[in-house]
């Protein structure tokens, strides 16, 4: 078994180095929210690393988290603490949420509704509400996730129906 492993390692390394050469990660950031989330991910054309990673299934199949300075207190015992859940979710799913809000429906919008503690009755109205207030929630393309979340909650709490039906605005 060990011998086979070595054989594969040598073969794979040989073709990896000879064909693709070194690769580098593409740094990407997702802006910063209250939690200071950000992310870095491999572009699609990582060649060797991506092929190898996919093959070995599990190396790179999960994000590994780097530690930044001044880690906030939004994680507790390995899970996201309740008072950071909304921020973390809005930040991480910012693109998907914007699309759902523009389209007036979608899974991320519903999940956000449940994080805001909205009752099932008003969940279905969140879509049309988000569409109607789209420009206020996202005034420009530079709006950060945190700003959008803040104004979204503001808009909702100014509406009688939502103010009462959503427990965590």
């Amino acid at each position, binding site marked *: 078994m060990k011998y086979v492993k*070595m054989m594969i390692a040598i073969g*794979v390394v040989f*073709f990896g180095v000879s064909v693709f050469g070194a690769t580098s990660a593409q740094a990407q950031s997702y802006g910063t929210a209250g939690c200071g989330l*950000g992310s870095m991910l491999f572009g699609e054309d990582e060649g060797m690393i991506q092929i190898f990673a*996919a093959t070995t299934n599990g190396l790179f199949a999960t994000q590994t988290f780097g*530690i930044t300075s001044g880690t906030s207190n939004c994680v507790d015992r390995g899970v996201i*603490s309740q008072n950071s859940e909304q921020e*973390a979710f809005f930040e991480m799913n910012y693109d998907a949420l914007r699309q759902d*809000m*523009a389209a007036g429906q979608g899974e991320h919008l519903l999940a956000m509704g449940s994080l805001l503690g909205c009752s099932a009755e008003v969940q279905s109205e969140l879509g049309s509400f988000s569409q109607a207030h789209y420009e206020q929630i996202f005034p420009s393309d530079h709006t950060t996730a945190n700003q959008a979340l803040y104004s979204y909650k503001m808009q909702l709490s100014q509406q009688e129906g939502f103010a009462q039906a959503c427990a965590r605005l």
Partner: protein
Amino acid sequence: MTHYLGCIAAILLVISLPFSAGAQAPESERLDGPRASYLRHLQLDADRLELDQRRQWRTLMHYQSRYFGGVKSHFDSPSFFLSEDGKVDARAELQATLAAFFEPARAVPPGERYDPKNEHPQCRFRARYQWLKEVLAFDAERLPEQDCPDYKEWSKTLGAESATLIFAASYINNPASMFGHTMLRLDRRPDAGSILTSYVVSFAAEPWTTNPFIYSVLGLSGGFDAQFSVLPFYVKTHEYSSMENRDLWEYHLNFEPEEFERLIAHIWEVQGNTIDYYYLDENCSFHLLTLLEVAKPSLRLSDNFPGAVIPTDTLRQVLDASGLSDRRNFRPAQRRQMLARRAALTVEEVKLAGQLGQAAKGKAEVLAALQDAPPARQVEVLDAAIALWSFNYGSDEQADKSWKYKLLAARGGLKTTSSEVEIVAPTPPEVGHKTARVSVAGGIAGAQDGFLELGVRPALHDLLTSDVGYSPLAQIEFLDLRLRVENFDTGIADTDIILQHFDLLEIISLSPLDAWIKKWSWGVKTGFDRTYRAQCPDYGCLVYDLAVGFGGTLEFGPLALYSLLDGEVALGSTFENNVRLSAGPRVGGLLALGSLARVHLEGRYRYPFLGEERWMNPIPWQGTAQPPWSARVTVSFQISRNFEARLNAVEGRRRAEAGASFHVYW
């Protein structure tokens, strides 16, 4: 690979802090009289009942039998054990565990950051405690039960009531990912939150390098640590569905409430402990199976895997276990949703949506012109355009986001709710053929020499096999070995057994070119093969080769036509200076006749630049050189899911061969 920095990063900070080395079991003398004697009593009881031999103890400790007797745990971090010899001594670990349960309660000062080190062993090893408490019937008077607020708080946050096994299908244009990947989702109770905010347990290595050389060697030789991580499902959907465009298959698992409780308790005690990662025998799928076994001791999932573990195989294991899963759900990735949206458009609208979503900055006049269309059509076009833009630039941080903002604002301004998009799920992974293959082939090589060929291939899939359950037009083969008995028909004295072919790896990705998804096709192959030259015996010379090709594929319904430009390096003593460099085109077609049969035609031309005589100026004493082209035709018949027959003919330089083969997948 994705890095999330910052907030969620703290998850690892919390769970990956180095734990103290295995706590020393307190000497019985340190306990007061009655408690020391009760501990002694429990330890004797455990011995009498041979608890250390019980399956439940073995699964809790992740022990595996060793070849020469005894056990060894998969876990490598000392924090997982209470006895110094816990990794290899089941009994010592059990005795030490019982002793640790008697430790006095620990007062953690308020405001102190949570740290597993400060936890009482009864709480840190929750599943072990609950099992031992049950089988030994702990007396709460003599062994006080700890309160474990941290564990309670954690499991309350999970808010889970059932588990779902998740299988991630392959990346587009990357057959290497056809093995898939598995995770375990802990589905929240409806009142605790949505499925997206449920937590997912996955097992993965943590590579600390992106240097392909170091990375490859360490990944295969156990140089990375791996561990179970618990992350929100939306982190995973972002990664798989949006960034990598991998479809997810979800399989609901049936656990009784007490089984599920055991699962949660066990996840708590394994998280943060590390395992040396060997891709070939201890990978993500295998370790997830062991979690399920702790929950449901009647399951025998991990016993069936002596060697390498392929996620699709583990998925089938789970689905074969009676009553474990009965519901399946398909979660299409972004790309599939986009194509479904496109399918609802007219030709003219597809063009419009393409103009809006194809470029990072589309044309404002196109967007303005769209407003003449009826609102319902505008909605359809914009939804498709937004999906296309996200597909192209969603993960590109440098892309100008202002255009997407314009599209979204226009879409929001229409004040109409989008319709749910109809998506036809592909065939699920578990119905595909099994992963390993043995073959037997026979035929005629050259003028009249008969041969018999035996082949074995541990994994996974090639272009000629039915793609039910697999990515279409994709191939990955690992360690494909074929041995030949030559001169099989001329009497036993003349037979030779030769190594015909041994591929370490061969990948082919024929990604059809599409107006919206322009992906190049590519192939890579490395291994041992035979080359046929005048200087070689009839059955060729063995050479080691490495070939890479790039090109394109066009798809016309069931027919795919492809063309790749290949470059090859071959090493072998038959060549001048032991090396041959060659390059040239490879052109072929693949026709699928339903799922019953496939026809594959391929022609190659490889011009030798180095190491071999050119065919136009043959060197007389080396025999007649011939042009370096070859052609092959193969027809495969899918007799049943795991049984296949093929007819095959090859014509090329100094080689002509025809034969039939049978393949069994297992």
